[in-house]
């Protein structure tokens, strides 16, 4: 470590303003602070600081995402071999998925970080860590068969127009990863929906294979099927709530396993990075909406139970990793209950009532991102009116 430190100290002058590699100053600083925690000491204000910084925060979120990522890789391989009718064993199943998912991950990071580095250098600022999380979220919320160039284009669009134009990490209005997903959805709807994009099927599939996601099946089910309708796996066998919970079902890469997502949720809540108020309220909102629809129950989608709603599609993933993004969600404590509840409610409403598209989480969160400042405005407003009420001079 000492040698590395010495080496860094030796080459550092080259990267200062006016140095040989002055144009890469932010990049150097980024790597230096990646290797060693900055040793600047406080000049003004408090003399001691909590050990946490934004790098640590982002690291914890990435750790929380790992179960979902690893499971997503396994599931990608699993779905592939099921479609081919092969029992490939754990290792090769995982390796297949790893090789399938890795390019998406790499493309997302290279494009996103490339833009971040360039902008940081251009603005002569430190490189900010926000994209470390967005970069891993993006591969997890796209279908496995999304062409890489689309991922690249959508990531670039989101980083530039949803984040950098607003001022960078901490200033964005919309969740960057979800903007990527929304861009893909609206620009290339064909590649984002349908029965074939969620499973990387073998060239020659077994008889009766269908890559339709459970939500897709629910969306397509005729009204007469109420009561007799069953969600099936890719081979047509009915699946139980437990199968949905464990997640060996077709869907976007990281969203299928509610179990893996809950592991991540435990990490986020225990470390205090994510707000239990937001997270819990999203689930509460979803459950309430689903129960209300159950009471009406005139279509198949309306009769889906709350637990199935939570385990299917991107609901749990969105609730745990996307709705809790502190920058784009409500920032007041009361606001978090409202924001979360409405997000969950809206997601289910869109799912059930929108005929064109079976999933609603992405739209719900992006929609609530717009309303988060408004919610905060009214929460803060109540504090203000309390203050004005007790004052004699207004």
């Amino acid at each position, binding site marked *: 470590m000492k040698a590395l430190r010495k080496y860094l100290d030796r080459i550092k002058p080259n990267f200062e303003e006016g140095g040989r590699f002055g144009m890469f100053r932010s990049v150097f600083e980024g790597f230096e602070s990646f290797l060693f925690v900055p040793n600047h*000491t406080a000049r003004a204000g408090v003399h001691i600081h909590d050990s946490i910084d934004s790098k640590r925060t982002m690291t914890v979120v990435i750790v929380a995402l790992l179960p979902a990522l690893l499971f997503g890789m396994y599931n990608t391989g699993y779905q592939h071999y099921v479609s081919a009718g092969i029992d490939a064993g754990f290792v090769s199943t995982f390796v297949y998925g790893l090789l399938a998912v890795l390019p998406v991950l790499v493309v997302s990071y290279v494009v996103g970080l490339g833009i971040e580095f360039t902008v940081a250098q251009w603005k002569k600022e430190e490189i900010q860590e926000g994209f470390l999380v967005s970069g891993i979220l993006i591969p997890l919320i796209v279908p496995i068969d999304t062409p890489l160039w689309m991922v690249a284009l959508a990531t670039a669009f989101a980083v530039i127009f949803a984040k950098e134009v607003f001022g960078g990490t901490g200033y964005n209005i919309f969740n960057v990863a979800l903007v990527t997903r929304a861009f893909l959805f609206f620009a290339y709807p064909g590649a984002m929906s349908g029965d074939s994009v969620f499973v990387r099927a073998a060239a020659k599939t077994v008889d009766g294979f269908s890559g339709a996601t459970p939500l897709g099946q629910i969306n397509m089910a005729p009204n007469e099927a109420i009561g007799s309708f069953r969600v099936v796996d890719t081979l047509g066998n009915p699946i139980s709530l437990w199968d949905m919970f464990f997640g060996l079902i077709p869907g976007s890469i990281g969203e299928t396993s509610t179990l893996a997502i809950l592991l991540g949720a435990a990490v986020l809540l225990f470390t205090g990075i994510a707000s239990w108020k937001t997270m819990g309220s999203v689930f509460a909102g979803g459950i309430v909406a689903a129960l209300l629809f159950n009471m009406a129950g005139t279509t198949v989608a309306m009769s889906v139970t709350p637990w199935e709603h939570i385990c299917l599609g991107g609901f749990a993933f969105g609730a745990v990793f996307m709705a809790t993004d502190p920058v784009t969600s409500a920032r007041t404590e009361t606001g978090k209950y409202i924001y979360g509840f409405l997000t969950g409610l809206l997601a289910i409403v869109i799912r059930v009532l929108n005929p064109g598209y079976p999933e609603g989480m992405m739209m719900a969160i992006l929609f609530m991102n717009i309303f988060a400042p408004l919610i905060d405005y009214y929460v803060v407003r109540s504090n203000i009116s309390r203050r004005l009420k007790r004052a004699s001079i207004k």
Partner: protein
Amino acid sequence: MANVIKIKRGLDIHLRGTAANVILEGKPSETYAVLPASFHGIVPKVVVKPGDKVKAGTTVMTDKNKPEIKLVSPVSGEVTAVNRGDKRKLLSIVIKPDTGTTDYIAFGAKDVKALSSQEVKESLLEAGLWPFIKQRPFDIVASPADTPRDIYLSTFYSAPLAPDFSYIVRGREDDFQTGLDVMNKLTGGKVYVGIRRGAKLPLKGVEVIEVEGPHPAANVSVLINHTKPINKGETIWTVSPDNLITIGALFNKGIADFSRLVAVTGSETTERGYIRTIAGCTIRSLVQGKVMEGVDKVRLISGNVLTGVRVSKDDYLLASDNQITAIPEGDNDHDFLGWALPGLNKFSVSRTFLSWLMGKKKEYVIDARIRGGKRAMIMSNEYDKVFPMDIYPEFLLKAIITFDIDKMENLGIYEVAPEDFALCEFVDTSKIELQEIVRSGLDLLYKEMN
């Protein structure tokens, strides 16, 4: 039945190096200084020149805007220097003390109860003790022309490694009570005194509030916010309990006696306890031989680690401070991949480091590193968790940054002082200098209003 306030939002940072309740022997201070920086809001005008002889209590500077406010010499001796910085800003007036006994100006002992409010004010102004009284809003030296709605003070300290006031006040209870009587004369309202829940302090003529909970339980802003919050147009005065002893002594003994107990604290000290000294002494006289002189640098702080000022041995103790803290500077420490390692010995309020395994009682040595880069406000609810007032700190800070006067007023700028944001600054993931933001906001607002 006393009022009880229970504070839930806050944080006690357990640092190594609390002062033991013993008296230590300090080195004699070769010079003393009167520092305008001790009293925010004063625009100093020097009235002595090098070579002048002064007594303890002789005026050495006055306030340009309110000339009745005076700062006096804490010792008798000879003015040796008037130090100025950039733009001729006055930094300090240095006084070389007489050898032997101190020659005090006799202001005459007075019975506070028999004095009028005006006479009390005049006594305090004349003896140079007025600047010890601060006002809210703006957290500046109080204006003698005002009559405050109420006066608030705390009789304990809750900041990290803070001195034990019950030890400081021992033997000076009379002066303290006289100080409280003085405060009673100055307000038309009440004098509210915060004490630790369960503490037994025989206080007369005041409204006692028992406070329970972590830091900032002792901050007067918290007391005020939980009893009678400040509204627009109202003025509250506050005074620190140490300084109230000095004020009481003026009326009991008839002299401006700036002697006080100063706690020597911090992990880098070799001896910890209290030193009897006089306000304005050199830092060297307090720490010489009591601070580790090793390979690594030590940071000396006049005050506590949250709100204190960084000093060197050649600097002077600020007039209202009662604590010296020595912590490691830490700038030689290169923490390899620190953001990724478990961090068993890294203190954090969040559980992102495994140090939560060590329990809440563990004492930490925390150095002066900021431990991260400055970012925009990313995490929410960080500040609120350590800010026990009915105020939204994040939104108030944003109003200050954009200097939106209406919003600042509406969100409670009149109720806060920079010290209230110290814990927010400590826990901040984005490492923003919040106290500085609040200070400059208050100053700008004051300028705007006057």
